[in-house]
């Protein structure tokens, strides 16, 4: 009987830890936009500039397909974030490995990056109409 109680106790702790880990995660993908730019090049440049301002240098960049690979800035981390631009002006920020979403430190970094992108890309005023 005592063993049974101990088993339930262990299961309870495991469940609690799983719930805590789940609560600490952020969505695996965050979408910014649609950004209001005159063209895809401007959106790409703005995205790159925003990332640079946030201290991120893409490890790999594919402007043709609208993709970037950003190394995490956590010390010693080998995790990477992905950026995917869409023709409609959306910018999708995700984890290279979706399991990283459950790591609190990476989740915080992911969220900070998403907030920076939103402030720069989504909150900017609409471009002036050209005569």
């Amino acid at each position, binding site marked *: 009987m005592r063993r049974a109680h101990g088993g339930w106790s262990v299961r309870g702790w495991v469940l609690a830890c799983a719930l805590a880990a789940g609560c600490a995660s*952020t*969505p*695996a*993908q*965050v*979408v*910014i*936009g*649609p950004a209001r730019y005159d*063209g*895809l*090049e401007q*959106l*790409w*440049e703005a995205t790159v500039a925003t990332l640079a301002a946030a201290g991120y*240098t*893409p*490890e*790999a*960049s*594919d*402007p*043709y*397909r*609208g*993709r*970037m*690979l950003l190394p995490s800035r956590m010390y010693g981390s080998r995790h990477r974030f992905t950026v*995917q*631009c*869409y*023709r*409609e002006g*959306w910018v*999708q920020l*995700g984890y290279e490995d979706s399991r990283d979403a459950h790591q609190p430190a990476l989740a915080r970094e992911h*969220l900070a990056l*998403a*907030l920076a992108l*939103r402030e720069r890309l*989504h909150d900017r005023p609409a471009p002036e109409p050209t005569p």
Partner: protein
Amino acid sequence: MTRASRAGVLLASLASLASLAAAPRAHAQTTCAGGRVVTAEGYCCWPGQRWDAEDLRCSGAPSCPAPLTAAGEACVDGTSPTREPPPRAPTMVRADGTVDYGAGTVTRPRQAIAAPREPEPAATGPVGGAWPLAGRAPPWGPRNPRRVTRSIEGLQVTGALFFGLAYASAVFTSVAAFAHPGSPRVLGGMGPRDATCHDTIGAFLLVPVIGAVVAAVVGAECSVPLYTAAGGAGLRTGQTLSISSEAEWTTSAALSASFQILGLGMFLLGTSLSEEVTVYEDGTTRATLAPLVGAANGLRLTLEL
């Protein structure tokens, strides 16, 4: 190099270019050349293929128009060397590779990133040339996160839940108390019954919070005089009738009072305190209750649609 060998090299180069052109490099198009057809997503693929939005390429066995023949997921000229379809690994180029935005073209990267799988042919073309189309709906994922300071909604909801359940329990107890026939008012268990104390508890329990407290206190103290029957008349005795023997009434009232106070306290605490949270534009409807301090003090109910 002899003239014949030069001609051979030239022919081999032309064959390579032809095979590259036949590779499933897709662009968002309205019309397609070379026998390819427009997919629902607006990309050019060989007949029988579909657009793989994840890998940004055409996938599936093609039904090649004559005189082309299928080679993997590509259609090639029978005389040209075949070329394997691009792998699933995403193509990435060094960020320090030269990118010419002014000309609208991207130069070939100096070095491909070491991918775990076979590298895909380097992407060339204008910026955005192969950006995916999201379609009508935005890409998957919550949209546009932002940090806001607001009431502690978890505490508010928990408190409201506690209060609601405790008050519902009080109402049920109240109904049961009103329905109780009461205790015999005459010594010996005969004669009319009296339900004054039950009715008193039931009435107080209908009042939120303070009513349950009063019901718990009054229920324990409530008593009515007992009568004795003598010659057809009821004579008052010195004894009293109480419901102290029915402890479930006062216990229920006390428990309900405790949880109502606890729930109300949690709700008020959650409303008065604030926390910084991340919210998304996910299009859901939500109501927010927050304290308002200024020209007029009170609570502000905000409904976001």
